[in-house]
């Protein structure tokens, strides 16, 4: 209690860093980055939030507590594009800056840090899978639920990329083989198993959420199909070291989560000091992760773009990073 008050007077910027839920490795990496760079951007050691179980209502309680605690900025990745909107709007009314990252709340934020351009990551992962399986093979997708916004966007981007570049995939209808694991490893495992059984010709699977990646890799090792069926997904490498090692994991794509944490700090500070607005370009001292265009340089989007998925006031963090069996050991998130 007393520490919060003291630090408020100490001049650093009080920030709530709110995740979808505790314990997801990607967010842990974000947090690591944010903590590491807090000093650089004059952020008080981030107030770490996130509901104990994935629920948008839990996030709202956290936001309410933060408003009452008079934070200066809320950085959050939202469980739902709508639910926290009311709470965030009242936060903005109270003069608090809102920076969303990873998943957006379009109607109630100042800036949104988009992980990567949807088209580039979709193309990256699909290209790798096709290279392994062949351009007229059968490739499945493992997602969490049909209403996961970003995953839907990725799938859409993959579909349109496949339509123009690999018209022969899945007999011309890429995107028809989708399994859902509901963000539960055990369920993903079952779903992946049954996908493999129902599609005997399947050559590669693209899991695009954390539980699906583990579940799919486990299923592939389980059926002694390691190496026969390729797994190319979107996810972080460290949790899947075992599967890289036993040959059931061929490639994962993501962005640099630690760097994203640093960018969150940077944007938060700039937002609080009103130093950025739509259409401008900014730099972050000490942060040199490769952005989409140039290292250490980011642009605040002025208008929406269909291909990248960006909307107004969106900052795209970076292009995709590929983790292969030969380089996965270099990243520990």
């Amino acid at each position, binding site marked *: 209690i007393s520490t919060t008050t003291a630090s408020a007077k100490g001049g650093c910027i009080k920030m709530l860093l709110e995740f979808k*839920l*505790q*314990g*997801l*490795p990607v*967010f*842990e990496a974000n*947090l690591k980055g944010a903590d590491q760079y807090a000093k650089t951007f004059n952020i008080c050691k981030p107030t770490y939030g996130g509901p*104990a*179980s994935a629920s948008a209502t839990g996030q709202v309680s956290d936001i309410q507590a933060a408003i009452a605690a008079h934070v200066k900025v809320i950085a959050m990745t939202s469980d739902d594009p709508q639910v926290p909107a009311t709470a965030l709007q009242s936060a903005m009314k109270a003069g608090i800056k809102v920076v969303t990252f990873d998943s957006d709340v379009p109607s109630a934020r100042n800036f949104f840090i988009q992980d990567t351009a949807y088209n580039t990551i979709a193309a990256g992962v699909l290209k790798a899978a096709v290279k392994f399986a062949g351009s007229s093979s059968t490739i499945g997708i493992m997602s969490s*639920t*049909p209403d996961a916004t970003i995953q839907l966007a990725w799938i859409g981007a993959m579909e349109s990329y496949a339509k123009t570049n690999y018209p022969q995939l899945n007999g011309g209808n890429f995107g028809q083989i989708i399994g*859902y694991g*509901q963000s*539960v*490893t*055990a*369920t993903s*495992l*079952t*779903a992946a*198993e*049954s996908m493999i*059984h*129902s599609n*005997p010709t399947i050559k590669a699977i693209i899991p695009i959420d954390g*539980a699906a990646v*583990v*579940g799919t890799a*486990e299923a592939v*090792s*389980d*059926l*002694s199909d390691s190496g026969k069926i390729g797994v190319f997904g979107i996810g972080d490498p*460290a*949790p*899947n*070291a*075992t599967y890289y*090692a*036993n040959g059931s994991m061929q490639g994962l794509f993501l962005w640099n989560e630690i760097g994203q944490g640093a960018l969150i700090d940077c944007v938060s500070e700039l937002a609080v000091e009103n130093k950025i607005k739509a259409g401008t370009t900014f730099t972050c001292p000490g942060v040199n992760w490769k952005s989409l265009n140039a290292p250490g340089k980011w642009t605040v989007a002025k208008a929406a773009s269909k291909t990248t998925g960006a909307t107004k006031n969106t900052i795209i963090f970076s292009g995709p990073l590929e983790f292969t069996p030969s380089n996965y050991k270099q990243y520990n998130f």
Partner: protein
Amino acid sequence: MLVVVTLAIFGLTSAAQPHFALQGNISFLLASAMPLAVVAVGETVVMLVRGIDLSVAPVLGIAAVSTGFIAQDSHVSVLSMLPLALAIGIGLGFVNGLFVTYARIPPIIATLGTFTVYGGIEQLICNSRTVVTLPTSWINLGTHDFLPDVPYILVPGVLVTIAMALILWRTRWGRSIYAFGANAEAAFRAGIRVKAIEISAYTVCGMLAGLAGLIYVVQVGSAGYNTGSEISIQLQAIACGLIGGTTLTGGKGGVVGSFFAAIFLTVALEGVIVAGIAYQWQSAGVGVLLLVAILIDAYQNRQGRSVSEALRSVLGGHKPVQQEASS
């Protein structure tokens, strides 16, 4: 009877989707039913003493993440983690027993309380981490068969079920469990240590949930802050007990039925997926299955005989001996 239905579902599904009966899949189905089967065996013991234990889910989770983290960090063998898993289960189950027996909180509420508290503990243990990079030996144990279609994972499940069935039938402790469930007051008057028996039932249930946690982490290869609760394994286990012929009113039923019910439930759920039913309706599928299970339970209670007996009498065309007596 359950075996028949299970085989029927299996047969129908494989007729529609031939690959369903592939060798690997049978083995996979058996293996993925084991965590549930072991939990269900424990839950059955509690149901036999007229109890209910909702906290098995986080108990399983705690055991899974604790053993998983240790294995992940120090690459110990699965067997060396067994005592830890059991100890966790025993401890947490014992606490449940204390609340039910000494604090006299109704089981459903007491274990609802411990469900939340244990769930919190599971999260604290995870402390924002997830068990993922298990040693290869663990993954192999979870994924390999020692005979065609007989996965290693099946072994502990079968052993536990046989052992519990024998214990319940052939030991004084087992008979005391039934006596307590049939009529706690009479058991007390007959000189049975009712409190010890009731606590021991919850302890055994916890112990098996702990064991199931270890099996789970070996089989799935991963565990996290809400392992167990996320698939409502406690409810599935209760459903298994009911489908397997154990009643909620205590003193009746047994663990073998629950074991097969767990396999049945797993095959049925997998069948639902393979049959191409939209994932949205899977939870409705579980709901309907549960309704069927309780209707069976109600039927058994009212008729004083099990559905399988009834079916046998219908199919076999002769009246069961018990019929005139039980009307």
